[in-house]
């Protein structure tokens, strides 16, 4: 697949993700919270999107809706041509398994399992043969430099190493989309830079990336910067031309 970081050529790529007027409502006690309020968004295959905005602006909700973890309350979400809001829970799980990889701020590694077994986990759920999944998990750890640390448990690994394991786990099923929820939020800036470089490299292989961040320096690596507030998309532009130059909004 071709690299696709120049915004000018994006329209040439097939549209992977289409959100039309998507809203997500939460009921908190008596009051309704509009986490997403009529968001329309098209993402092409190979896009690298950074998602910024203050806390509670709906970044994570948008990420979860794209990741088929959270169903939209209204609107249309098309993923790879499939209308997600109409799909069964079972099919949604299949989509998450085959098409989507997640990484998180706090890594979400299972603490009692070795790095290798954490990476094997999606394959275990998919019922892959033990021998084959071991090979695949090792192959996923290797390019991230985690081969020698495969038998360590998360509490024996540094934050950067944990995030590398999490990336290996997200990539082991060879998804077409990587969703990253503040992947550098718990890391020092040097390690964060290493992680974002890895993500950039993955993007160059054709992987579509949506990344939530508070850090403008991280967002600067993306091809498109989306800025959100109060559940709405306020701007969508290359980072250099962003109308909202990433006002750092710590939680």
């Amino acid at each position, binding site marked *: 697949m071709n690299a696709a970081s120049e915004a000018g050529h994006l329209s040439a790529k097939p549209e992977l993700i289409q959100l039309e007027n998507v809203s997500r409502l939460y009921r908190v006690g008596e009051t309704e919270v509009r986490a997403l309020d009529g968001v329309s968004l098209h993402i092409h295959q190979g896009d690298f999107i950074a998602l910024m905005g203050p806390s509670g602006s709906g970044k*994570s*909700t948008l990420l*979860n809706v794209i*990741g088929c*973890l*959270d169903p939209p309350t209204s609107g249309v979400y098309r993923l790879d041509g499939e209308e997600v809001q109409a799909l069964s*829970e*079972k099919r949604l*799980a*299949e989509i*998450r*398994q*085959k098409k989507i990889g*997640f990484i*998180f701020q706090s890594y*979400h590694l*299972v603490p*009692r*399992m070795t790095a290798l077994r954490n990476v094997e*986990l*999606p394959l*275990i*759920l*998919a*019922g892959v043969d*033990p021998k084959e999944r071991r090979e695949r998990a090792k192959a996923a750890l290797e390019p991230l430099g985690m081969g020698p640390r495969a038998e360590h448990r998360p509490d024996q690994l540094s934050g950067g190493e944990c995030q590398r394991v999490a990336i290996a*786990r997200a990539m082991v*099923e060879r998804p077409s989309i990587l969703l990253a929820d503040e992947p550098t939020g718990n890391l020092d800036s040097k390690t964060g830079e290493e992680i974002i470089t890895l993500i950039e490299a993955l993007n160059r292989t054709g992987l579509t990336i949506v990344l939530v961040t508070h850090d403008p320096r991280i967002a600067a690596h993306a091809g498109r910067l989306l800025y959100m507030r109060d559940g709405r998309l306020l701007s969508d532009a290359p980072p250099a031309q962003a109308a909202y130059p990433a006002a750092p909004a710590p939680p």
Partner: protein
Amino acid sequence: MRASDIVSLAGEALRRHRLRTGLSLLAVAIGATAVLLLTALGDAAKHYVIDQFAAMGTNLVVVVPGRVETSGFGAAALGGTRDLTLGDAEDIRRRARAVREVTPFSLGAAPAEYEQRHRDVYVMGTTSAYAKVRHLSLSAGQFLPAGDPRRGEPVVVLGSKLRHELFGSENPLGRSLRLADARFRVIGVLEAKGQSLGIDFDDLALVPVAAGMRLFNQSSLHRIMIQAPDEASIPATIRQVRAILVERHKAEDFTLVTQDAMLQSFRSIINALTLALAAIAAISLAVAGIGIMNVMLVSVSERGREIGLLKALGGQARQILSLFLAEALLLSGAGAVCGLLLGTLLLQAASRIWRELPLAPNPFWAAAILIFALCAGALFGMIPARRAARLPAAESLRGRR
């Protein structure tokens, strides 16, 4: 997801909380042990009774005076009860064909006295055939003489304990002792036999039946015991004995009890008792199931993020349900197995202490315990497992822990 992976993932999760897992296992194990011990005790009691019946003699039909029925408790009183006499016994012996031995006996309590030594004993009046029917053997001398049962010579055969109490180291054969007001010459001593169905043969004095009835001024025998030639002819024996007695008494004012019927009623009583004990013990197993549910509910609320992660990685709700159900089943199954092992060890130790009780784990009950424990685990594990499977993925991922 493969079954082996479900089990190993569930096992890993359980091993993380060793204390919690251990306590849940202990609760199930105690329940399983209790059921196993109590059912083994019931079994042992049943075997004990069966052994006792076997020791009593085989293929026995017993004639009891009076009509014993469940209906009409006043029947015997209304019709009047005729005595069971030596004549009845003699007639049965002469006329019934399906009969091997007939032995009447009387029973009473009297003080036995020999040279200043007193002892209150049961005195059984019977005939020479009694030794054959009850498999009695002698350590010295001879048993009651054969011949006309009406004669009633003043001779006595002593139980082994009674002999020691009255005579000490002295040889009792040929000595004379006093039973109530009459003198009897000792002609034999029984070998130690112990208790059999309420009769302590070691503390018993056996005299000829006529002498026994005279001693207590009795007109009726206590029982007539009849031994059929074999098991198949017992119905014929009953028919013939009943016909003869009805003819002599002009009414059916007696009851025929077979050993088998007695055994059956004992067996059903003990079975019912065993079942009741097992049910009570099973409550503790069910309570252990509730304990598992409690532990699993805590575990589900602690592992919200892990559940969310599994969903994000493509885990189906059904798979998450299976994982948590597998944990509950592992807990209850392993607990039951531990309990069965512990129970078996305890039973082995107990059977070494109480040798007369055949204490052993019953494989049927062991299987039932395992199945019951697994069912309880599945039932009580279902609620937390469903809760886990239904957790909304996005919110659980964001959870605090």
